[in-house]
C-alpha cells in the first residue's frame, strides 16, 4: 500500500471530526467513527436524561417533515383555553396563522399568551391541560405551511 494513498486519506480526515476509519478495498467494507462534540462524551446519566428529554419519538419524527416545535417561553402552568369553560385555542389538526394564540402559560397569577411563531397545522400537543411546564419545554408541533 503506497504512502501516497495513506497520505491522501489522511488529508481528507484532517478537516473532519473522524476519529477512526477502516477501509478494506476491492469495493468492500468501510467503517467510520466520528468524535462528536464534547457534550456527547457525557456521563450515562446525562445520556439518559438526554434521551428522556430530547429524543422523544415525536421530536425525532419531526425532523423528517417540515415540523417546528413551539416551546414554553417560561416556567408556569399550561392552559389550552382562556378559561375553564371556554373551548381550547387549538386542537390537533387546527390550522394556525403566525401570531395566533396557541395556549396560555400562567406564571405568578398572570396569564401569558403563547403565540405561534409559524403558520401551519398543529400536529401534536405535547402537554396536558393544567400541567406545569418548564422553560424551553416543547408544547406543540406545527407542520409549517400545511393546511
Amino acid at each position, binding site marked *: 500500500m503506497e504512502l501516497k494513498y495513506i497520505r491522501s486519506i489522511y488529508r481528507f480526515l484532517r478537516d473532519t471530526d473522524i476519529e477512526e476509519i477502516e477501509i478494506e478495498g476491492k469495493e468492500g467494507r468501510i467503517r467510520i467513527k466520528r468524535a462528536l462534540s*464534547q*457534550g456527547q*462524551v*457525557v*456521563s450515562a*446519566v*446525562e445520556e439518559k*436524561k438526554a434521551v428522556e428529554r430530547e429524543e422523544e419519538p415525536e421530536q425525532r419524527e419531526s425532523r423528517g417533515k417540515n415540523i417546528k416545535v413551539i416551546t414554553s417561553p*417560561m*416556567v*408556569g*402552568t399550561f392552559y389550552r383555553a382562556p378559561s375553564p369553560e371556554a373551548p381550547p385555542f387549538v386542537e390537533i389538526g387546527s390550522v394556525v396563522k403566525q401570531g395566533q394564540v396557541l395556549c396560555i402559560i400562567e*406564571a*405568578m397569577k398572570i396569564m401569558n399568551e403563547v403565540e405561534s411563531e409559524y403558520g401551519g397545522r398543529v400536529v401534536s400537543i405535547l402537554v396536558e391541560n393544567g400541567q*406545569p*411546564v*418548564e*422553560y*424551553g*419545554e416543547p408544547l406543540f408541533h406545527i407542520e409549517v405551511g400545511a393546511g
Partner: protein
Amino acid sequence: MFNKILIANRGEIAVRIIRACKEMGIKSVAVYSEADRYALHTRLADGAICIGPAKATESYLNISSLISAIEVIDAEAVHPGYGFLAESHAFAEVCEKCGIKFIGPTSEVMRLMGNKIQAKKEAEKVRIPVLPWSNRGLSDEKDAIEVSKKIGFPVLIKAASGGGGRGMKLVHTQASLANAFNMAKMESLSAFGDGEVFIERYCELPRHIEIQIVADEHGNVIHLGERECSIQRRHQKIIEESPSPVVDERLRDRMGEAAIKLAKAIGYTNVGTVEFLMDRERNFYFMEMNTRIQVEHPVTEMVTGIDLVKEQIRIATGERLNIRQKDVRFKGHCIECRVNAEDPKTFVPSPGRIKELCLPGGPGVRVDTAIYCNYTIPSYYDNLIAKVIVHADTRIDAIHRMIRALDEFHIEGVKTNIPLLVRILKDHDFIAGNIDIDFLSRFS
C-alpha cells in the same frame, strides 16, 4: 417541617443545600438554566426545573421565573444560597407576599442591612465601634471635602449599596478627593443603580474578621465565633479560617456580644454574618452585615459541629434554637481554600471540560463541590469550582493537611489557582499568622 424546598441557586451551594434536605427528609427541587442541564445540582436534587437560558439575568436572577417555578412545583419554601438573589430584599418581599417561606431574614431587615449607611447607623445605635465616618450619604464634593478634613486623610469613599469593592476609592490627599468622589458615585450608580456614597477613615493593614450568628424567630440569638478572612484578592476571599490567629477567648466573646446586640436590635432572624475590620491593636470596627449563608460557612461548621444549613431550615420552620451560647464549643482549627477555575498568574477565568479529576479525601478533609470528571464548566457563572476544607487539632496541623489535600487535587482540562493557594500556605508570614487584607497584593 417543610415537605418541599426549591433551591434558587446552582453550583456547590445548591449541592450543599440538597444534601441538608436529603438528610432531613425534605424533598429538594433544583432550578437550572439551559447551560446547567448536566450540572450536579440538577442531577442530585429530587426534582429539577429549567427556568431560563444560560444568562443569569434571565434564569437565576429572574424573580418571576423562580416564583412561578415554586408555584408549579408546589414548594413551601425557597433557599436562596449565596450570590444571585440571596440578598435581594425585593425577592424576599415577593416571596412573603406569595406566602412562600424565604429561608433567611425578613425582607425589611434585608433592606435595612443592604444599605451600608443604615447598617452603620444601626451599629452605632447599639454602641458597636465603627470607624469615624461621614454619618450620612454625601451629596457633593464640597460636602465630601469638609467631612474628610474632619475625619483626617487617608479616607475611603464607599457606596451605600456597595459590595465586592465596587464604588470604593481610597483617597490620600484633599487634592484627589473631588475626582475620586465623582468616580465613586458614577461607579456606584452603574453597579447598583444607586449613586449614594459615604466616607470613612481608612484603616491601615486591617484584618477582615467576621462573626457568625444564628437567630431564631423567637428572639434567641447566639454567635458561633469568628472567621478570619484576610486572604483576599480584589475583595474576593480565597482562604478563610477559624479561629483567627489573633482572636482569643476574651476578644471572641466581645465581638460575639457586639454581633448579637446588633442582631437583636434589628430583629434579625436566620443565620447571618457581622463583618468587622480589625486594626493592628486588635480594635474591631463594624463594617457590614451579610444577611445570608456565606461561602465560608463550613469553617464554622467544622469547629463547632453545627450544621448551619440545617439550622437555617429549622429556624425557617419556626423552631427554637436548641443550642445555648454556653453549649457552643470550639474544637481544633479549620481552614477553607477556594479553588477557582482560573489562571494562577493572570487570574483569567478558565472554563472548559474536566478531563481528569481526583479530589482530595481521607481524614479531616471535606470537599464541597459541584464538579465531576467529564463535566464542562460553563463560562456564564462564577469560577469557584470547589471548596477544600480541612480540620485538625492545631493551626499548623491544618496547614499541613491543606497542603497535602491540595497536592492530591488532580484536575486536567481547566487551570486552577491551586499553585497560588499552595504558595500562600507555605509562606512564612501566613504560617506565622501575620496577615491582613493587603497580604495578597504584596505577595509575589
